[in-house]
C-alpha cells in the first residue's frame, strides 16, 4: 500500500480553498424494518432478524413502515427542509452481496425532504450555516465480514460472510450542498456538523444515534481550488468515517493530500477513499466508473407517499425544542459563564443539571456537584455521569444539609460516596456514620489553642495583617477534629481570639 504525499495543513491553506460536502446516513430506531415487519435490533444472532422480504425472495412485496415515514419527516423539519407533497421510492441497481435483491430501495428524483439548512456552532461560538440539499429515505444493507487474508480487510480475503439482520433497517440519508467558505476551519466544521446532526436525531428520538454502532455514518467529500477561483476542484469521497474525531481527521488529511497532488501538477482523481483510523490516512478505493450507473427507476412495488400539510403540521407540533435553542435558553437561565457552560456541555451533564435544578438546587450548587464531584467519579468508573445513578433529590438533600451547617462540604462528599455505594439516603448515612459538624465551641477553642501553640509565630503574622496565614491554624484544627469542624466557625473563633477584625 503506497503512502501518499501530503502538504502541511498550513501550507495547504495558504494555497487552496477547501469545499466540503457530507452524506450522513442515520439509522432510524423503529421497532421494525423499512419494508418488512422483521425486528430492527442491533447485536442479535446473525440472520435471525430476517424474513422473506429482507432476503429478497421471489414474489414478496415490501410494505412501508409508517413510523419510519414520520421519523423521516421529523428529521426533514428539524433540518428546516421543505417536505415533499408527494414522493416515491426508486430502485438503485447494483450487484453486491450486501443486498440480496440486487437493488437497494431508495429515493432518487423525489426525496421526502429538500432545501433545508442547519446552523452549526463551532467551539468558539461562531455559527456556520450548512445548506441541506435533501434528506431521503432508503434501507440499510447487510453486513459483510471478509474472511481470510491478513488484515480482515477485503484486500486478500478468500471469502465473505453475510448477515442480513441489518438489511432493510430504515435509513435517512442527509446530503448537504457544497459547503464553501469554511477555510482553515473546515476540519472543525466537519466534526461540528456531524455532531449537530447526531444531536438533532437523538433529540428527536428517531435514532439511537450511536456512531460506534453505525447508527450515524458519514461520507465526507473534499475538494480544493486555488483561492479566488469559483469553479470547484475534483473531489474525493471518503467513506464510512464513523466517529466525530475521525471526521475531523479525515477532512484534514484529504485537504493535505489534495494539496500535494495539485502542487505536483497532477489532477486529483475523482474516487472513493477508505479511512484508516490506525494510521489516520486514507487509501484509494475505486475510481468512479460504470459501477456507478445505478439505473434508478421508480419502485413498481410501492405507491407514492403523500404527506398532507395537516400531517406535516401535526408532526411539527410534536418536535422537541432544538438542541441549540435549548442550550441558549439554559445558559441564560443558569447564569453560567461561556467557559462554565461549555464544560458542562462537553461533560455531557446538561440534562442532569437541569433535573437537579428542577428538583430544587440552585444553578451554582447543581454545577458544583455534577462538575466538581460526579463527573470525576464517572470518569474513574468509566461510565457516563448519568449512569452513576445519582438522583437529583440526593444532591438537593446534600446541599441543604451543608447549608444548614449539619455537615460540611468534605463530609458531604463522603456521604455522596456512601450513596453511590448503596448505603442509603444521605440522612441515613449521616446518622449511620455519626457525621456531624462540631458546633460546640469548647472543643474547638481547645484545638485552636493547641494549633497556635504548635505553630508559634503564625499568630503574630495574622495580627500583623497577613490574614491568609490563618490557613495553617485552620488546617491544624481540622486535622485535630478529623474534619468534623466547621471551617468557617473555626476561622471566626481564631480571629476573635487574636482580636483581629477583617
Amino acid at each position: 500500500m503506497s503512502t501518499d504525499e501530503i502538504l502541511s495543513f498550513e501550507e495547504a491553506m495558504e494555497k487552496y480553498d477547501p469545499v466540503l460536502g457530507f452524506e450522513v446516513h442515520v439509522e432510524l430506531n423503529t421497532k421494525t424494518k423499512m419494508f418488512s415487519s422483521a425486528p430492527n435490533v442491533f447485536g442479535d444472532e446473525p440472520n435471525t432478524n430476517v424474513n422473506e422480504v429482507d432476503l429478497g425472495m421471489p414474489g414478496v412485496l415490501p410494505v412501508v413502515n409508517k413510523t419510519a415515514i414520520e421519523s423521516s419527516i421529523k428529521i426533514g423539519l428539524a433540518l428546516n427542509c421543505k417536505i415533499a407533497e408527494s414522493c416515491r421510492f426508486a430502485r438503485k441497481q447494483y450487484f453486491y452481496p450486501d443486498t440480496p435483491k440486487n437493488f437497494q430501495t431508495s429515493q432518487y428524483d423525489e426525496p421526502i425532504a429538500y432545501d433545508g439548512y442547519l446552523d452549526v456552532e463551532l467551539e468558539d461560538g461562531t455559527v456556520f450555516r450548512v445548506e441541506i440539499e435533501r434528506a431521503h429515505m432508503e434501507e440499510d444493507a447487510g453486513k459483510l465480514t471478509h474472511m481470510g487474508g491478513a488484515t480482515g480487510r477485503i484486500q486478500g480475503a478468500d471469502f465473505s460472510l453475510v448477515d442480513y439482520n441489518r438489511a432493510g433497517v430504515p435509513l435517512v440519508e442527509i446530503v448537504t450542498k457544497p459547503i464553501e467558505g469554511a477555510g482553515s476551519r473546515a476540519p472543525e466544521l466537519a466534526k461540528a456538523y456531524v455532531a449537530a446532526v447526531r444531536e438533532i436525531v437523538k433529540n428527536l428520538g428517531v435514532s439511537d444515534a450511536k456512531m460506534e454502532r453505525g447508527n450515524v455514518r458519514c461520507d465526507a467529500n473534499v475538494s480544493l481550488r486555488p483561492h479566488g477561483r469559483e469553479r470547484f476542484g475534483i473531489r474525493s469521497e471518503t467513506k464510512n468515517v464513523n466517529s466525530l474525531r475521525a471526521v475531523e481527521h479525515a477532512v484534514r488529511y484529504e485537504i493535505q493530500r489534495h494539496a500535494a497532488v495539485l502542487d505536483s501538477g497532477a489532477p486529483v482523481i475523482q474516487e472513493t477513499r477508505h479511512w484508516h483510523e490506525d494510521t489516520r490516512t486514507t487509501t484509494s478505493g475505486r475510481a468512479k466508473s460504470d459501477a456507478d450507473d445505478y439505473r434508478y427507476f421508480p419502485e413498481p412495488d410501492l405507491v407514492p407517499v403523500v404527506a398532507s400539510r395537516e400531517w406535516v403540521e401535526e408532526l411539527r407540533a410534536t418536535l422537541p425544542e432544538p438542541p441549540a435553542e435549548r442550550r441558549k435558553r439554559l445558559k441564560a437561565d443558569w447564569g453560567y459563564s461561556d467557559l462554565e457552560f461549555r464544560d458542562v456541555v462537553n461533560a455531557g451533564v446538561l440534562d442532569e443539571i437541569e433535573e437537579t435544578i428542577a428538583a430544587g438546587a440552585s444553578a451554582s450548587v447543581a454545577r458544583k456537584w455534577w462538575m466538581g464531584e460526579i463527573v470525576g467519579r464517572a470518569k474513574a468508573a468509566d461510565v457516563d455521569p448519568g449512569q452513576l445513578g445519582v438522583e437529583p433529590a440526593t444532591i438537593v438533600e446534600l446541599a441543604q444539609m451543608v447549608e444548614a451547617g449539619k455537615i460540611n462540604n468534605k463530609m458531604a462528599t463522603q456521604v455522596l460516596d456512601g450513596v453511590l455505594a448503596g448505603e442509603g439516603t444521605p440522612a441515613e448515612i449521616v446518622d449511620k456514620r455519626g457525621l456531624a459538624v462540631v458546633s460546640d465551641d469548647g472543643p474547638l477553642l481547645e484545638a485552636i489553642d493547641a494549633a497556635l501553640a504548635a505553630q508559634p509565630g503564625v499568630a503574630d503574622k495574622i495580627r500583623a495583617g497577613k490574614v491568609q496565614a490563618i490557613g495553617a491554624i485552620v488546617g491544624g484544627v481540622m486535622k485535630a477534629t478529623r474534619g468534623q469542624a466547621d471551617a468557617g466557625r473555626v476561622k471566626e473563633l481564631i480571629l476573635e481570639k487574636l482580636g483581629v477584625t477583617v
Partner: protein
Amino acid sequence: MAAINRDDVAHLARLAHIEMSAEELDRMAGELAVIVDSVKSVSEAAGDDVPATSHPIPLTNVFRDDVVGHTFTAEQALSGAPDSDENRFKVPAILDEA
C-alpha cells in the same frame, strides 16, 4: 428517446453481469430498438398535460404499523443458500464494488 445502439447494449450487459457474444449484441441492439420504438407510441398518445406516472393504480400511502411480525430462524434463512458458515451466507470475496 435516442435509439438503442450496440454500445448501449454492451454497456447494459456489463452492468447486468451478462456475457454476450458479438452476434448477440448485434441482435439485441435491433430487438431492443424495436421495443423502445413500441413504447414510444405511449408518449404520442399522452399530451403535455399528462404527467408521468410510476404506478398504474391511483393509490398513495399504503402503510404498515410499526409492529414486529414473523422472522425466520437462521437455519430457515440459510436453507436455500449454496454455502454458509457460522450462521451466515458464505459468498466469494468480491473486490471493487463496495
